[in-house]
């Protein structure tokens, strides 16, 4: 008997079941499990928000993200240039291919369309969607949406279409189920800059991930 069979038989013995009765189960049991998976019922939800964008902004700022807004995506590079120069941060970095067409150089920025390397200091990404309940970005990994761009650089900039803000994580899962059959290799929910409170329980921003997260809301 291998370890798998031994553990499974221990589970059955503890619950006083037989091998046949446990996994196969009765018809009623099987139907119950299948319908639970198919229906994936929601638990208790937070009260609905009147304004998803305002709610998202409020929560994101509370979690130490910075938020800017543009009425046109063409203005994103100018806003980013201003943000970086105000903080005396480097003006070069990398972006996801979907954002390569924005006028970066016109705004005085050197943003290359490629996955981030260790020495890159600014990473510009989009987001699959965002969650108003917690001020959170939802990122799906893929060839066009590398996970490292939001992880290795000290500054993470996410350009987000406000129409992609949903109320809850449950809504975000449903959007993913609708647009993709299954989750990609990595789904990352990001809620502000990386942080640690390991030393004297004092919150310090910028642990192993970005020191700052800038969210630019712009129609894409």
């Amino acid at each position, binding site marked *: 008997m291998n370890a798998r069979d031994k553990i499974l038989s221990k589970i059955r013995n503890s619950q006083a079941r037989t091998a046949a009765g*446990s996994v196969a189960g009765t018809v009623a049991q099987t139907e119950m499990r299948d319908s639970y998976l198919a229906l994936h019922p929601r638990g208790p939800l937070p009260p609905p928000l009147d304004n998803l964008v305002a709610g998202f902004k409020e929560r994101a700022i509370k979690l130490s993200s910075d938020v800017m807004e543009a009425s046109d995506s063409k203005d994103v590079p100018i806003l980013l240039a201003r943000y970086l120069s105000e903080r005396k941060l480097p003006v070069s970095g990398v972006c996801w291919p979907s954002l390569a067409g924005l006028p970066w150089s016109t705004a005085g920025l050197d943003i290359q369309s490629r996955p981030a390397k260790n020495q890159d200091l600014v990473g510009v990404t989009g987001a699959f969607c965002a969650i108003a309940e917690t001020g959170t970005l939802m990122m799906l990994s893929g060839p066009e949406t590398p996970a490292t761009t939001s992880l290795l650089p000290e500054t993470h900039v996410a350009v987000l279409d406000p129409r992609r803000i949903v109320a809850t994580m449950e809504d975000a899962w449903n959007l993913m189920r609708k647009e993709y059959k299954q*989750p990609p290799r990595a789904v990352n929910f990001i809620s502000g800059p990386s942080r640690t409170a390991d030393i004297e329980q004092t919150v310090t921003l910028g642990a192993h991930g970005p020191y700052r997260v800038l969210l630019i809301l712009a129609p894409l």
Partner: protein
Amino acid sequence: MQNTSINFKRQVTIKLADVKLQGALSRLQTRFVEGRAAVIGEINDLQETRTAAAAIRDRVLNDLEYWLLHFEQQAIARGAIVHWAETGADVNRIVAEIAARHGVRTAAKSKSMVSEECGLNDALELAGVEVMETDLGEYILQLAHEAPSHIVAPVVHKNMEEIADLFAEKHQLPRKTDIAELCREAREVLRPAFLNADMGISGGNFLLAETGSVLIVTNEGNGRLVTTLPRVHVAITGIEKVVPTLEDVTTLLRLLPRSATGQSITNYVSVLTGNKDSADHDGPEHFHIILLDNGRSSLLGSEMQEMLRCIRCGACMNHCPVYQNIGGHAYGWVYPGPMGSILTPLLGGLENAPDLPNASTLCGACAVVCPVKIPLPDLLRKLREKQMERGMKSRQETFMLKAWAWLALHPAIYAIATKIGVRLMRILGGKEKLLHHLPGARGWTDGRDFPAPAGMTFRELYKRGVHK
């Protein structure tokens, strides 16, 4: 990790006298207890959400074989390799084999309490794999050769000055005097470890049956780095961590960070499914998931099964007056506080941790804050009953309990005995009305005086109508 719970009482005396530790523990109380209180009310209906969370965990535990197999099937379909381990030693062997198969020389690790159960780091070093802890707290402990003293804040027992000294010595860099500078130094020292590691090792907060995914919650970003950069990722977790659906885990995620650190959500929640695709620029080529039993299966179907609901938030220890005074090391194994006082005897043998079920005042604070409604005081009481049934109590304690039980069954004699008792104690209390010594209760009177009774029993006072 070696279980030294047998030394509990001796350790308690040492910890109570440790001034530095007492300072560190007072911080935990303010940051974590007040932090939780500040955000737990954000949840629309907390009690309804706790009930739903407990039901989600019970659904899985009552049908664990089915949900484990469903998880395994989905994970394999996405390219992960699922391993099963009966003991911690089996986990160590499996990880060493994976390392050998993929030619792994260095591993970067994010925090995993299950790996602490196994003593994985020492085993991998023996197998020739260099392991680097990357969670800031765990990294500090690795440098100091110490064990974690809290499941969420592993280095809560150390203050900034000690960590500054440690970094200056180990990093051979000028001593930093500020927490932010210490964090940056650790970031810069550890970044190459992430980039060069052949293998990333993580725990798993939840296993998702619906999608075959491992979910981890982190704040520092090290969890994302170790599961994104190295070519091999090994996730190690307990068999009880399965959750059926994405919706179910979302309900649990509303409770976990709020209960743990007072955050409405952790910085990162990562849901990891399968290997990288050929077109992907990042992600591991090989994804191994190790499911550890280590005694968990024996709790199923027993009166202790509810303990397996635990989602490892640490709220029970943060709110425990015993943990708040002695810290985590005294408990002698990986899991301290009320949840540890139950898990350690259950997983490691009641005979090896006889003091832990009794290291509680049964005040009930842990049960009130537990996000999955584990009746922790009831479980502690059941363990005490087991000790009594198995004759594991000292002769003195057994005698006292039996004597009390006999008295309680004879009300007339009980009344006389207590009348004499309270009068005697009043006289002994003297003018101060305090007893400095009490036979059989040195544990109490060593640290403080026992207030002398007023001289009459409750029943006497009641009869006289004092209550009116």
